[in-house]
């Protein structure tokens, strides 16, 4: 994980004032000691940290800036799988390699029974961990 100071410095070059402020706030919350004890977040969980709805486009841009930009990468993206045949509203973490294989093949192989699941993007949702830490709380 990059140093907090260098992340804040990288975020300071974002020209959009609202985005810059929200990214900075989210990074601050994530790096706070109590937040580090919490090991993973969905879009909803990250939105709660800065009082933004999970569907808010500004939250999405913040998450992109903190997970995609090399200079300010604080978050790593992974995925939860919501099996349509099980009653599991929380989903379950799915191995990154299964998702990569799904994009290569065009279908996801269900980790429990090996079923081929087409249109799998409607059954996976991103969750994030601090870079270098792979957790499962949400």
């Amino acid at each position, binding site marked *: 994980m990059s140093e907090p100071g260098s992340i804040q410095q990288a975020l300071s070059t974002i020209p959009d004032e609202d985005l810059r402020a929200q990214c900075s706030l989210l990074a601050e919350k994530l790096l706070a000691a109590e937040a580090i004890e919490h090991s993973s977040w969905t879009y909803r969980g990250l939105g709660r940290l800065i009082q933004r709805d999970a569907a808010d486009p500004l939250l999405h841009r913040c998450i992109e800036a903190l997970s995609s930009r090399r*200079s300010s990468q604080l978050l790593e993206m992974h995925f939860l799988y919501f099996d349509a045949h099980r009653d599991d509203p929380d989903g379950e973490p799915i191995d990154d390699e299964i998702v990569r294989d799904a994009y290569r093949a065009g279908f996801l192989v269900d980790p429990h029974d090996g079923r081929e699941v087409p249109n799998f993007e409607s059954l996976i949702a991103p969750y994030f961990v601090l870079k270098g830490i792979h957790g499962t709380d949400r």
Partner: protein
Amino acid sequence: MGPTVEELRREAQKTAVGRLHWAIQLWNFDRPTYEAWVELVEDAVLFQIRLVAQSKSNFHVLGEDQISRVIDIGLKNLNLDSSAMYINGNTDITIRFDTYCWLGEAKLALDNSKILHGYDQLTSRYASGMTGQTSGGMLLYVTRDNAQVTLDSWRAALAVQVPNCDHRDGRVPLTFCSSDVCQSTGQALQITHFAVPLLHDPQEAKRGLSEAAKAAGRAARKTARAKRAGKT
């Protein structure tokens, strides 16, 4: 359940920048081919060129280094891993993802000899020619002439200088593409040439209405008044 990937993708499709951001965010899972990656990188470069051209009054006096740094900052803000470096009097922009690399050579397009110097640096000095590193671009900052005229002139000069360059139209106006061979690996290099229109020569203070134009205006006014008087 947070938003699914399908929902996030649908939301991202609403804007060009959204599409770009989302594609970049998924690259670690939905890895593009090198060709698809280059197309996306060049779309991002074109997006930044459009922004710079829209503010040409601010940029036409700057040197290539400063303009390149502005473009580099814009590319970083599109979440690309971009860097601009000033080496031996030339600025190049490097964009990377994993093993992929795209090199951009920036030149003030003052004459074709200067542009060729940059082109030779790009194709012989910087390009590695390794797999996933065979595409790049020439960013021609055109401050003193019409951008299309400058690009056409350079294209004609390149066709003679590099007879096998296979020059062809680009995907969008003010671009063309060509090929070359990397000296060190023998691999084909694909180069996109971008003209960045920065000529800023406002005409409003220079050009007055001609006598003939003034006379035409007066005659039309007179005719219109006569028509109105006839109706009443």
